[in-house]
């Protein structure tokens, strides 16, 4: 029932309130003694050099792209799994075709070395 989503909203508001109260308590009761050294980025005691957010390895980007591809596949699986008992063997064959096409891409990515982390 759609009305049940209001209950989730109630829980969302409550949990956000808990989080804000927790942070608020820390801000009220915690000491505030700012200093130059404290507000520097922490790099194990060495004085930091360069920017904190710098260029990142392209591997992470590659993983993100592959993830989008395969996560959409998983999302396709969900409605299929619910009506699976009505679709019977036809549904299974459909899904096998879908997975086969996807697996071609998967093995291509594997052979290209997209899944390696050197």
């Amino acid at each position, binding site marked *: 029932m759609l009305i049940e989503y209001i209950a*989730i909203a109630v829980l969302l508001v409550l949990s956000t309130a808990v989080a804000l109260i927790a942070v608020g308590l820390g801000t009220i009761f915690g000491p505030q003694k700012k200093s130059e050294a404290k507000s520097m980025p922490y790099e194990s005691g060495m004085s930091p050099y360069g920017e904190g957010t710098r260029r990142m390895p392209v591997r992470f980007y590659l*993983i993100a792209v592959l993830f989008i591809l395969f996560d959409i596949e998983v999302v396709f699986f969900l409605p299929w799994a*619910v009506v699976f008992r009505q679709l019977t063997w036809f549904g299974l064959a459909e899904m096998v075709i879908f997975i086969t096409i996807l697996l071609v891409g998967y093995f291509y990515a594997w052979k290209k070395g997209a*899944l390696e982390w050197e």
Partner: protein
Amino acid sequence: MDWTIWVEWLIKSLFVVFALLTGFAYLTLYERRALAKIQVRIGPNRAGWQGLLQPVADAVKLIFKEELTPAKADKLVFFWAPIITMVPSIVIAAVIPFGPTTTLFGRTIVFSVANINVGVLFLMAVASIAVYGIVLAGWSSNNKYAMLGGLRSSAQMISYELSLGLGFVTAILLGNSMNLHDIVDAQRNVWFAVVQPVGALIFMIVTLAEVNRAPFDMPEAEQELTAGYHSEYSGMKFALFFMAEYQKMIAISMIAATLFFGGYREFWFLKDTFLSVDAIWNIGPWQFQAWFLGPIYMLLKVVVLLFFMIWIRATWPRIRYDRLMSFGWKVLLPLSLAVVFISAVGVLVAQQFDNNWYLAIIPIFSSVAGLVAVGFVDQALRRKSYASH
């Protein structure tokens, strides 16, 4: 709409929030005591009887700590990141059923905050939001360690999320519904962990990676990244990350219990006895359903699953990051696809012959698939072992 329904929602939401908050507090103590016992130490036992007041002492200490915001940090994102991480870890518990539907005070009570028909989809969606908080925390700190920790964490979580999603699909296939109440009811006779042991095992491995627990705790590898994405956090903001991690552990154990271990339902050997959640108790003039056993069974299962998580942390070293990623992509993803396929075929064969004993082909074939995967890992590790260099 009746005003009492708002009261019902509020009571159920408060119950979930307090259960997770106290659960978090005592899980930290439970973990420290259990780790200590495994390592033949004593652990915290000074604050209160058996250290039972230790979580309170920790909370008080953290409240009185200074909160730092680095000068170059993105102030707004830095403030909201811990909250964005913590809130989904509570909200995810909204759809988890912790008792059978029953009649109390003349109204039908459903024992979950929301009984929605796309419960599993909700779980998947909310589980993904937690990644945002961690990435934002790593990025907004403007610190190299935090940035790397956030990146590692997001890459790991999204890689393992695929197998997590396929684990959900397995449970949907067997339960024939996306509603978690229906999935639990479908396990009345036999747990899905028995029908699909490999699926349950994959699910439990993947949940370890999803909550960044050992042996997949690379994002927080203190030897190389100081503390990972929460390096720059202190005081209660740090506590929120800590809270999020432990609440996610509890929530994900609840999900694993719901999907594969019968949820709030009784253990199989208690079926049809007076300890079943469907049993009707007659005490004197009163007659009522034993619904209150549901939360108790749920708690028992969650405690056992949490103990396994702690035990693994005490036993296994961290996995190297390249092995972690290739394990997720090259082993778990194909294996969980195979598991889904085998489950689908098993369900169809059982439906075709109208005999549930045919479901037995699922555990047999998936165990074979699991053994093939284990053999593959063994071969790969042997080839790369240091002995060959």
